[in-house]
């Protein structure tokens, strides 16, 4: 924990930014050692600012901060990775925004969560290099597991009936996962391979999932990921509902 009035160094990803006064900005950072913090970046909106584009959202930074009473102040920054492909491609950008939004909801102010930071950095790097439309949905499933909320996938979350004894036909995160015909509520499962995809993501086969061709399974897995994450954080993730749907999914007719 940073001591008030002391300078400290850390690694961080910029989650969001808001304007402050004439030329300053408050950035929300997911740091490696200090959890989620909010810091003032003075004069950053002036063209002569030495911070420049370094404190833009999604950037992975090495930072030096001064802890004030309420807010931290960013004094030095060095870019570790600017994730340029994320900045310059609308599909990657919209996925990155969804991931940052979810992390912002899950991380608590000032509470260390190094695994969350590390997972976010890895996910942004994968998104930057592959551009797969399944990075953000897969990240949501992994994030739920990291936060201790893995859904039940092999047996009915309502009555406990295993998959081998009957079809699992619906998914409701609030109920704990998949549901059998008798217990069904929430979203009805329509694609046969959806549950298998989620299992592969959660069982360490993410690489193979990311390079899967787009299919009804992938589209349904993506929709369920958003539903589950929204149920977990208890609010709508605005970044997932701004009309910037992945065109690859949209064009294949998989997204309503």
């Amino acid at each position, binding site marked *: 924990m940073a001591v008030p009035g002391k300078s400290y160094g850390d690694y961080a990803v910029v989650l*969001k930014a808001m304007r402050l*006064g*004439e030329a300053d900005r408050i950035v929300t950072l997911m740091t490696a050692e200090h959890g989620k913090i909010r810091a003032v970046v003075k004069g950053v909106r002036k*063209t*002569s600012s*030495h*911070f*420049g*584009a*370094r404190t*833009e*959202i*999604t950037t992975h930074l090495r930072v030096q901060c001064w802890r004030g009473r309420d807010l931290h102040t960013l004094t030095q920054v060095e*870019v570790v990775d*600017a994730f*340029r492909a994320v*900045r*310059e*491609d*609308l599909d990657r*950008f*919209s996925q990155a*925004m*969804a991931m*940052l*939004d979810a992390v*912002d909801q899950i991380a608590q102010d000032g509470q260390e969560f190094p695994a969350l930071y590390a997972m976010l950095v890895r996910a942004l790097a994968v998104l930057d290099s592959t551009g797969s439309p399944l990075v953000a949905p897969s990240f949501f499933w992994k994030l739920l597991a990291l936060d201790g909320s893995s859904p039940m996938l092999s047996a009915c979350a309502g009555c406990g009936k295993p998959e081998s004894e009957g079809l699992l036909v619906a998914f409701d995160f609030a109920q704990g996962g998949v549901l059998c015909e008798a217990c069904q509520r929430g979203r009805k499962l329509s694609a046969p391979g959806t549950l298998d995809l989620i299992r592969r993501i959660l069982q360490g086969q993410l690489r193979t999932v990311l390079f899967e061709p787009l299919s009804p399974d992938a589209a349904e897995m993506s929709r369920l990921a958003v539903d589950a994450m929204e149920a977990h954080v208890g609010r709508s993730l*605005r*970044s*997932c*509902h*701004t*009309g*910037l749907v992945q065109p690859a999914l949209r064009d294949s007719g998989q997204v309503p």
Partner: protein
Amino acid sequence: MIYSQSVQALIEELGHLPGIGPKSAQRLAFHILRIPEPDARRLAAAIVDVKERTTWCTRCWNISDGPLCDFCLAPERDPTLLCVVEDPRDIVAVERTGGFSGRYHVLHGAIDPIGGIGPEQLRVKELLARLEPEGVTELIVCTNPNLEGEATAMYLARLIRPLGITVSRPASGLPVGGDLEYADEVTLGRALEGRRAMEA
């Protein structure tokens, strides 16, 4: 109450203005108390006037005193060249360069998914409706060079390029008078990509 009711009311109202704290509000209120009455009346009339007369231009969504703003009414401005900006204040910044003779379109924001602002919340439909009737051949997307501005530019390019209209973006690079040592990696990278051959 420390001050009379009218002075207190003025301080409170001034305190609602952006960037004005209680101390500044008090200073401004006492300045207004000291200035001659005609000056104070002119200030009050200007505030009332701007609220009564000002509206949005129905074509470009700039601030206007009538249905169409001065830029849309000016016959000498090139209608085939359209500059898209986020905010009416950005028009002033572009105009100060003296290098643009086309018309404008104000989006009133930029795409910000985390803030819940998507294309639907911007004046994009109004922009699309202008392109054909006005014979636009080039769209200069002059949104801010930050992540939200870039995303907005990418979105517009994806939407408008298929219509056969050139979509361009102002060059980004190093600020004149700055030190190379302090330039960030993204800006310097783009400046190098967009380098120009020097004339002899």
